[in-house]
């Protein structure tokens, strides 16, 4: 097997995007989510973006329009999700889960158009609530648009590494 290197930078139109700036973006997002700043989080998306969490039986290539999912939010649902999470009546997240996110193994790939690129990364999210501690492990498969003032999610996808969500490990927060 040939090991492919060279995912530390990617060309997007005239701009060269390097790993460190994408890492900074993902770290900033993790911090925003760990602080429950949902409006700031929504501002990281382009209008019309999607947020997806496939089920644990997911095999690459499935369309969320033709299969079941844990989350398949279009722009309307994504905004509804953020509005819900900001409400005191989102009982599953009131009080909110304490989360702590680790992001690593960031790799960049060319996108399908000239203003975006794909990024994959590994995540570990620890969640504490109700005297319990749950761990979620998986891989991000995002599409980021390059805008004048930085990156924005066009697709934010979290693919779980579990065989099934463990007992108690719901997805009431943003994974």
């Amino acid at each position, binding site marked *: 097997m040939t090991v492919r290197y060279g995912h530390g930078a990617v060309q997007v139109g005239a701009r060269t995007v390097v790993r460190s700036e994408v890492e900074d973006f993902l770290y900033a997002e993790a911090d925003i989510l760990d602080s429950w700043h949902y409006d700031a989080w929504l501002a990281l998306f382009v209008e019309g973006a999607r947020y997806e969490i496939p089920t644990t039986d997911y095999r690459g290539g499935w369309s969320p329009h033709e299969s079941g999912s844990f989350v398949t939010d279009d722009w309307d649902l994504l905004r509804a999700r953020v*509005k*819900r999470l900001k409400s005191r009546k989102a009982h599953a997240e009131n009080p909110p889960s304490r989360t702590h996110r680790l992001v690593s193994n960031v790799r960049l790939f060319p996108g399908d158009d000239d203003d975006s690129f794909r990024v994959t990364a590994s995540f570990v999210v620890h969640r504490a609530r109700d005297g319990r501690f749950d761990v979620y492990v998986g891989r991000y498969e995002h599409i980021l648009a390059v805008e004048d003032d930085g990156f924005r999610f066009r697709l934010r996808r979290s693919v779980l590494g579990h065989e099934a969500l463990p*007992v108690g490990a719901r997805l009431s927060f943003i994974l």
Partner: protein
Amino acid sequence: MPQVSRDETAAPMIIEDWNRLTFRVNRAAYRSDEVFARERELIWLRNWLYLGHETEIANPNDFKVRTVAGRPLIFCRDTAGEVRAFLNSCPHRGTVLCRDTEGSSKLFQCFYHAWTFRNNGDVAAIPDEAAYESGENLRETMRLRTVPRLAIHEGYVFISFDPDVPPLLDHLGDAADYMTMIEQQHVGGVQTLPGVQLYGVRGNWKLAVENAMDGYHFAPTHNTFVGYLRENGFAVTDDDQYAYNLGNGHSLLVLTGHGGRISMIWEPRFGEDERVRTAEHRAEMTERLGERRAHHVADESHILYVFPNLLLFDIEGMSIRQLEPLGPGRTDVRAWQLVPRHEDPASRALRMKTVVSFVGPGGLATPDDIEAYEAVQRGIEATAADPRPGLDYSDMSRGMADEVKGVRGRSIDEGAMRGFWRHWAAAVGFDPQVAGDRPASFLEGRDVR
């Protein structure tokens, strides 16, 4: 868990009082290891249990591996096309035979000693078979162990570990027709899709049953989801909606004010194109099923509970939910999307988005239900072994005042839960403590055939 020295099951499990119009359930029912062990023996090993849907194993040689009632099973379609359920355990020494979760295979081979079986259960090969010249017909005695009973209704595959259960349709009773109604929604029927929600909750399995039969919680628990629907032009109402006991522990909520139904009842968030498709499909249904039947099939949302482990949500879209208890306070949940076999791609995409927006551990509503099961499971520790009488009981009296007047039970009452608990108590051998007479006008069942 606090240590409880006395026997929690000594107090009555159910106290039903028709003089005071109260119905109370002993919280040990959710908490006790002894109750859990009795349930395993007297409910899970003696009833029909939902195993899976035929369309999960659509083609010959398809298989899924699944644990039901704690027993690892192989759910497969053999090479000849017949649906089978085997214990996933090598007859030789008990090793888990199939360690994949799903796939397609004519043979199952145990890795330990390479005993090999066909997917109809026949022994295909035993290495060095000549060493077993004991006079016994080894190949016959070492066939794959089947689950004793298997029967299918409308594609829903049920099994029983008890060879002597009555026929499946006797068990399903009035619940069977609501499964037929789902099949009748579309020409060509329905199928499951890949993308199965596998998750677990820190709550007793009966809390998940109660929650599904409890319309009372909808407005307060799902406040944010109701708000989302309202913003999109749909006003949720609980008026004129009812709950039914269907016998044998099964129950039904009939909901008409909780949201649209993809391809049957349009609501604004579905969009204009879907409005046209809905009108066409609804007209086709009247033509095919007749006006009355089409009304029941199309215009009502149904939440059907089939005792003990199956919930069918025929609401905005359709989904199957299977409960697998792991212990008194832990339950695995599996949920499949159920869709028309032949469906416009735009409707299918809308369906996937809409169903997932509500149901599942990542939806906008189910997480609040899970919060409820888990908060109850934690909260009922507070009254465990409390010496004051009656404190360690949960109240499910809502609607009894109407029941004595012969008024039909509303979806926002607790009559469906009471029916479940009565059946449960009888099944596990706890005599309910009953005071007064249950009213003669007591209404049960619903028949729309």
